[in-house]
């Protein structure tokens, strides 16, 4: 009975304040979309880093079947060439610059590739043969890349030496700046959302002061009096958060999945499903914001 009563109170509150409730939904929707966009950029950065990015800085790719580089005259790198490179990496002249290195075989390369490009159609058209084996090197000082490059580029069996960081770092710094901007906008919008929720609750409490006054006099508990107002704000904010989550999913599905992945087939994009891990966080954040701001408002405007 009490639950049914609280629910009907919430229903009538939402109807009575419809325009305010819609504005709360929209403001939380926009602010949480920005929060989610920042989260999505970070997910995308992780996706692009792939398996090796945080572990190594420099990759020495060995010759594959179709390699045309000068060192690949003999075709696919032979086991002897591989051994020579390993010896060279372990020699004191080179070892002083590196922490450690790992060898990635064609099969391992294929496994890591499949993980990184799991959302991309490209993964089906690639076989282990097409992927080069490589040495992945963790540098003591990433700035010393040049030394490794000079030493290994001309070795037989080496196709190319790549400083992965140099390739991606600039892009990542742009993406990080974009997430920062998104977070700042989100922060301002969240302040708007909190103030708007507080105002809505206050108006709602004012328009129902007759009811709440009577409830107080006949001995209704604080929960019964306040919960409808708090839930009113929370429900509006959760709807806004759900819309924001839906928007992020749509961006991942239609923009990244359908458009960007065709424009840039060699880039790994996050999947729509991955954006859904942001949804509980956004909904939780929305509900918390609304709950806290309505509690604070009610303490001032709805005496019990």
């Amino acid at each position, binding site marked *: 009975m009490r639950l049914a009563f609280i629910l009907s109170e919430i229903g009538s509150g939402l109807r009575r304040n419809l325009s305010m409730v819609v504005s709360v939904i929209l403001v939380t929707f926009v602010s949480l979309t920005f929060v989610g966009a920042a989260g999505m950029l970070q997910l995308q950065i992780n996706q692009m880093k792939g398996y090796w990015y945080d572990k190594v800085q420099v990759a020495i790719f060995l010759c594959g079947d179709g390699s045309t580089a000068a060192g690949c005259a003999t075709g696919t790198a032979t086991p002897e060439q591989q051994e020579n490179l390993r010896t060279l990496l372990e020699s004191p002249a080179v070892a002083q610059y590196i922490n450690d290195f790992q060898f990635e075989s064609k099969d391992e390369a294929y496994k890591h590739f499949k993980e990184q490009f799991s959302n991309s159609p490209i993964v089906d058209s690639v076989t282990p043969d097409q992927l080069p084996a490589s040495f992945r090197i963790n540098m003591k000082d990433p700035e010393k890349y040049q030394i490794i490059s000079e030493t290994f580029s001309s070795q037989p069996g080496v196709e190319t030496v790549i400083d992965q960081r140099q390739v991606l770092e600039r892009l990542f710094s742009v993406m990080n700046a974009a997430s920062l901007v998104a977070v700042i906008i989100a922060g301002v919008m969240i302040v708007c959302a909190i103030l708007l929720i507080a105002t809505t609750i206050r108006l709602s409490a004012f328009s129902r002061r007759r009811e709440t006054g009577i409830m107080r006099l006949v001995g209704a508990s604080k929960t*019964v009096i306040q919960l409808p107002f708090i839930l009113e704000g929370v429900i509006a904010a959760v709807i806004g958060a759900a819309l924001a989550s839906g928007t992020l999913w749509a961006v991942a599905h239609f923009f990244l999945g359908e458009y960007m992945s065709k424009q840039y087939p060699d880039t790994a994009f996050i999947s729509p499903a991955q954006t859904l891990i942001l949804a509980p966080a956004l909904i939780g954040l929305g509900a918390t914001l609304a709950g806290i701001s309505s509690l604070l408002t009610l303490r001032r405007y709805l005496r019990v």
Partner: protein
Amino acid sequence: MIRFENVTKVYDQKARPALDSVNLEIDRGEFAFLVGASGSGKSTFLRLVLKEDRATSGAVYVAGQNVANISSWRVPRLRRGIGVVFQDFRLLPQKNVFANVAFAMQVIGKSRSIIRDTVPEVLKTVGLEGKEHRMPHELSGGEQQRVAIARAVVNRPGILLADEPTGNLDPTTSMGIMGVLDKINQNGTTVVMATHDDDIVNEMRKRVVELRNGVVIRDEARALYTSMIPVVGQSRRFKDASGRPDGSAADPGDGSVSSQAGEAQ
């Protein structure tokens, strides 16, 4: 049932206290009028009983419990034991008679079947049977006040506080309301009614507690609106808030006459 021990209530440090060292005890099942001019502290007294405000000093006991010791989450339970009606009825305009009374039961979690059984019974007690589906604007003032009384007593409180319940009603209607309050009192509910309606007080012949400027100046059983006993000491020279000299005190034994004179003014 209600006991005030040396209760003083100061709203505003610069003004005189709204209640000044009030000592008073109202027993279970009693019917007491709280009389006095506007501003004499009647409503303040009732608010302290409800713990709507806290006493500045002294102690207020309700049903044996010092209300100062009731924690805020248990205040609702205190209020479930006290019904209140006001001069302005305070009905919910968009709910019909039945729903207005049922509201008081819904918000404390009473089941639908209990509500269905109890509300018509209480409406009968206040003389509103057959009017369950009227909206408040379709009722006369007296009927609206009956709805308010029904709402106040539907949860069977031990105490009913009425703050000038007849203040907006004509004399005949007022007497009807008094009949309802008397019936509720007969059923065992302690009733405290603040009023400055002298006709009603004179008609009812109940206990009268008179306040003036926050001080209890009279407490008489089966009394009239104005005292039949001379008021001793300096209070003789006091004037009440309306500026009318306290003529009654100067004329012992003639309370009913002077009250009629007061009404004629």
